[in-house]
Each structure stands twice: as C-alpha cells, then as structure tokens.
C-alpha cells in the first residue's frame, strides 16, 4: 500500500434543500491521498468537491463513513483539532490584524513563543515572496499579495495537509498562471500534501499529480492529468476535461459504426459491442493530396483564429457537429478551405480513444 496521508472511507453526505428534497453531495466516496501529493478535485459547481473539502477540514459533518489523517480517525474532531489548514476562496484574511499577525495566528494559538514566531513568520513570508511586509494591513495589499498572505498563514504551522478552495479564481489570468507554477514549486519545497479544488480543468491539468473528476457526489475518475485527458473512463470526463468529439456506435474489428452511417477507425481491433469513440480536436489534421489516413468530410460553419491555432467548427453530411484544432503554422491550408467552406479532417486511428458502453 502507498504511503497514505489522508484516507476517506465511504464518506457520505446529503443535504436537504428548502423544497424538501435531498441532494447527495457525497455518495460513499473512497479517496486516498499520498504523502507529498498534489491532488486536484475537479468538477462543475454542485458536484460535491467543496463539500468533500469541508468534510476534511471539519466544517461539514459526514452522514456516514470515516476520515483518517495519518491513520488517525479524525471524523468526529472539530476543525480546530485537525492537522489541516485551508486557503479560502476569498482569502479570509483578518482585516483588523497586520500581515505579520495574520501569518502568525496559527502559531500564536498554538502557544509558540514570540521570538520563534517572528522568525517563522519571516520565513513563511519569504517563501511566498512577501519579505518585509509584516507591518502592512491586508487592505493595503493587491489581490495577488493577499493570496500569498493567505498561503503563508495556512502553511506556517506545517499542517499535514493543505486544502485550497478555488484560491486562484479571483486573480486575473496572467497572475493565475504565475501562481499555478509557484504553488506547485512551493508544494515540492514544503513536502506537504495539497488538495486543490477547482472547476477550471486547465488549472487541474497544469498543477496536479493526480486529478479526481467529480460529478453527482461521485469520483468519476481518479488519475494522472494525462490519463484523464487521453483515456477518460466515461463521456462525462471526456466532455468536462478538454474539448471533445464523441461518436457512439458499434465497434466491429477496428471500426466503429455510428447510427448515422459514419465509420471511425481505431486501433483497438479486439473491442466489440457498443462503445463511444473520442477524438480530441487537436488530433485532426488537414490531409495533403494523396494522404491515406482515415478522415471525416465536413461543411465548415465557422473558422476562429485564436493565436496559436485555428478552431474549425464543422458539420458532417448527417448534421453531426465536429470541432477541430489546426496549428496556426498550417495557415496556407486553412486559407484554401476558407474558400471552399469544406474540409477533409484526417486522424490517426491510434489516437482514437474508445470508451466501453457500460462506463459511458
């Protein structure tokens, strides 16, 4: 068994809505987070990811199941007796305290002597790039700086586990990307496990060792970012993470035949029965003369230039929507199809991923 820091066993939680219905936020979830792992909980709003985080931090009481941290059962412990700290979505810095006092709070509460506190505050602030800012008040800082204070405050007591609840969602795009890299680096330096909650799939893929995709209170897939993207277990994961073209049909000897008469070639010749084929938009390419790769013919509805790529929005003869992404370096070919409004989208059968029917 791997070196586990947090383990959830059959964690379940349901909420009552004001209309008198119950909503299952956590449906008997099993989860195992390793020491020094960066795990991301990814899912649409209402999928249970925040409930899961709050169950670990102690703000949500489970209906059933157990939570163990370092093999210790903490299911019934209040938040202030758990070796877990949280970076909140809106930072939740104490407005009446300075940056130094905010950062020192966990140490002050734990009864650490003043001189040691000052040293550790200086260390923590240096780690997040805010050295010498002890005397400022939170309101004198920019959003990015407040974010860093929240981070310093949460790591100063060296928790066994750091929870991050969509901490980057309030930052603008450039800052968010810079912080993603910094968080990852910081996590390596500290050697603390991170559980990061986000609804931004790009963020999840960028930072995580593993990603848990949640929907309807269940973990749909728990895997490395690459496996999540390349080999989604079901069509929910395929559509939620990244853009996708899905074709449902019958797999017969290396072909998948859809009901509307398309035939998709794939490399899994031994698979038979109902299945869904996934082709990512970037797997399509524009065939040159004489290319023998399998392809789909589409009428183009729109061509969007997004900088590094062209996004082609097309429809097959049977009306099925297809999205393709063509590198901007192929702009001469794109120029041609812009004239004809028709394109032959080729793909490599080896790049087609098959999702068996029972999982979809």
């Amino acid at each position: 068994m791997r070196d586990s820091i947090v383990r959830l066993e059959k964690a379940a939680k349901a909420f009552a809505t004001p209309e008198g219905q119950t909503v299952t936020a956590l449906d008997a979830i099993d989860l195992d987070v390793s020491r020094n792992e960066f795990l991301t909980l990814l899912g649409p709003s209402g999928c249970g990811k925040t409930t899961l985080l709050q169950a670990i931090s102690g703000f949500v009481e489970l209906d059933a199941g157990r939570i163990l941290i370092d093999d210790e059962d903490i299911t019934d412990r209040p938040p202030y007796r758990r070796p877990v700290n949280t970076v909140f979505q809106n930072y939740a810095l104490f407005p009446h305290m300075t940056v130094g006092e905010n950062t020192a709070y966990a140490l002050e509460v734990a009864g650490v002597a003043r001189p040691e506190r000052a040293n550790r505050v200086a260390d923590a602030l240096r780690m997040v790039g805010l050295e010498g800012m002890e005397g400022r008040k939170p309101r004198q800082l920019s959003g990015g700086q407040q974010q860093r204070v929240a981070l310093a405050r949460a790591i100063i007591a060296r928790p066994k586990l750091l929870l991050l609840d969509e901490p980057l969602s309030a930052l603008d795009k450039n800052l968010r990307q810079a912080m993603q890299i910094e968080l990852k680096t910081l996590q390596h330096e500290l050697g603390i496990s991170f559980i990061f909650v986000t609804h931004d799939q790009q963020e999840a893929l960028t930072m995580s060792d593993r990603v848990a995709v949640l929907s309807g209170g269940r973990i749909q897939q728990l895997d490395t970012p690459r496996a999540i993207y390349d080999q989604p277990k079901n069509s929910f994961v395929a559509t939620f993470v990244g853009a996708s073209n899905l074709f449902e049909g019958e797999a017969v000897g290396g072909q998948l035949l859809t009901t509307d008469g398309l035939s998709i070639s794939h490399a899994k010749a031994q698979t038979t029965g109902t299945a869904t084929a996934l082709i990512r938009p970037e797997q399509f390419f524009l065939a040159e003369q004489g290319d023998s790769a399998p392809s789909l013919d589409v009428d183009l509805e729109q061509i969007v230039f997004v900088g590094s790529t062209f996004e082609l929005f097309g429809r097959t003869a049977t009306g099925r929507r297809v999205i393709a992404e063509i590198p901007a370096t192929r702009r001469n070919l794109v120029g041609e199809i812009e004239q004809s409004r028709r394109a032959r989208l080729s793909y490599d059968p080896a790049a087609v991923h098959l999702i068996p029917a029972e999982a979809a």
Partner: protein
Amino acid sequence: MSSIAFRRRAQLGLLLGPVSLFLAVFFLGPLAIMIVTSFLAPGLYGGVEWTWYRHNYGRILGFADPMFEDFDPVYIAIFLRSLKISALTVVATLIVCYPAAFCISRLSERWKNFCLFLITLPFFTSLIVRLFIWVLILRQTGLVNAVLLNTGVIARPLELIYTDGAIILGMVYIFIPFMFMPVYASVEKLDWTLVRASLDLGAGPIRTFLRIILPLTAPGIAGGAVIVFIPALGNFVVPAILGGAKVMMLGNLIEQQFLAARNWPFGSALAMMVMCVMLVLLFAYVIVSGRRGIDAATGR
C-alpha cells in the same frame, strides 16, 4: 473655480442648508441661552438676575456661595450614581442584545425583518404608559410579588419598585432598541469565513470569539454604548416613575431645579455639567471609531 466645482458646492449647500439652519436656530440658540443663564444669579422668586454669578457651578464642584450654604457633596453623589446607573444600563442592554443579534442575523430574510419589527414595536406605544405598566408589575401588590407570595416562595412582599434595580430595569426596557440596532448592524456585517479561518487555524471557540468576533463587532458595541449611555444619563422619566422620591438622578434633579425650585441658573449649570461629560465621551468615541472607521472604509 471651475463650474463643476462650483455646482458641487452649491448642491452641497442646498442639501445641508435646511438642517444647518434648523440646528443653528433651535439647538445652538437655546444652548447659548443656557450657557449664559448658568452664569447668572437666581432671582429671589424665580427668573434670573443679570449679574455674574459663579456659585451655580460652585454648588456642584465645591465652592458654594458662603452667603447661603456650606458645600454639600450631594450633587457629586447624584452625579456619580447617575453615571453608575447609566453604565449598568449599557452593560445590561449589551448582555441582552449581543447574543440576540447573533441569533437574528442568522435567520432567513423574512424572520429577520419580523424580529427587527418586533424590536421596534414598543416605539409605537406611549413611553409613559409602558413605564406605568412596570409600576403595576413591580409594586408591593404587583404581579411579581403576587405570584411569589401565592406560590409561597416568599413570606413578605419584596421591595422591587423605587430601587436602583427598578430604574435600571426600566432603562434597559426603554433602551434595548438603541443598543440592538448598531450591534446588529455590525454583527450582520461579520464575515463568517473569518470565523471559519480562525477555527481552521487551530483557535477554539473562545479564542475565536475574543480574537476575531469581538474586535470585528466592537464598533457596533461602542456605538450602541454611546447612544444608550448619553440619553440614560439625562433621563428623568424612568427615575421619576420607577425611582419614586427615593432615588434621584441627574435628569430629575435638573427637572426639579427648573420646574419645582425655579432655580434656572443652577439647573442650567447642572445641565452644562452633564453636557461636558457627554462631550468628553463622544470625543473619545469619535477618536477611537475614527481610526477604525478609516480602517473599515478602506478595507475590502
């Protein structure tokens, strides 16, 4: 001066004009008359003599007019007692309002509004009538004594009315809305994620209350304390009805000087003393809350 700046000033003048005029005529005017009166000699049969007379203040502070009397510290005693009763009123209203504000702030919008309505409801009835009902409840043959006697808890009726306790009870009853509103406003504004952050960082409930909740709601408590303390100090209706003749407070004393003793200069001097105390308190409050106010205004 640019025309925009001029128009802005003109607008400001128009908006603030009526209230400034009103206060100048009906507040500063009487105040000036009172200041002058407090330095004049009392007339033999009421009214004032237009001569400089500093012994009105002397009677209170220790340099009484040797022609008529020796210095009597009774006025200082009344002053101190009034301060004490007002301070206890502030503490008691706070004890009632603070927890209630937390409960009500967590209710649904509908119940919140209903509770706020209930708290302001007593304003719709005459103050005097409400206080006389307390007389019925507290007097020797009143409700409380009747219940306690009939259930055998006590053998003789308790002396409830005409005590400091009765005055404080009446004051608390009157001033609860004044304390509740500012306290509620600051409790309502409290960001509960800060409380969660504190718990998350290892602080237990008591420490979280002392380090986070209390400091963040302190402006409301201070505001409530000031607007309860000031009218409580000058209140004369409650001590008149529930204090009987035994317990005198500054408010009754001043009322008595004006209406019964017809010593307007001395009454004015007493009123000026009360005002000085209030100004000192208000000044302290403005300085403290001003600092906080800047914090709050520029925060988040």
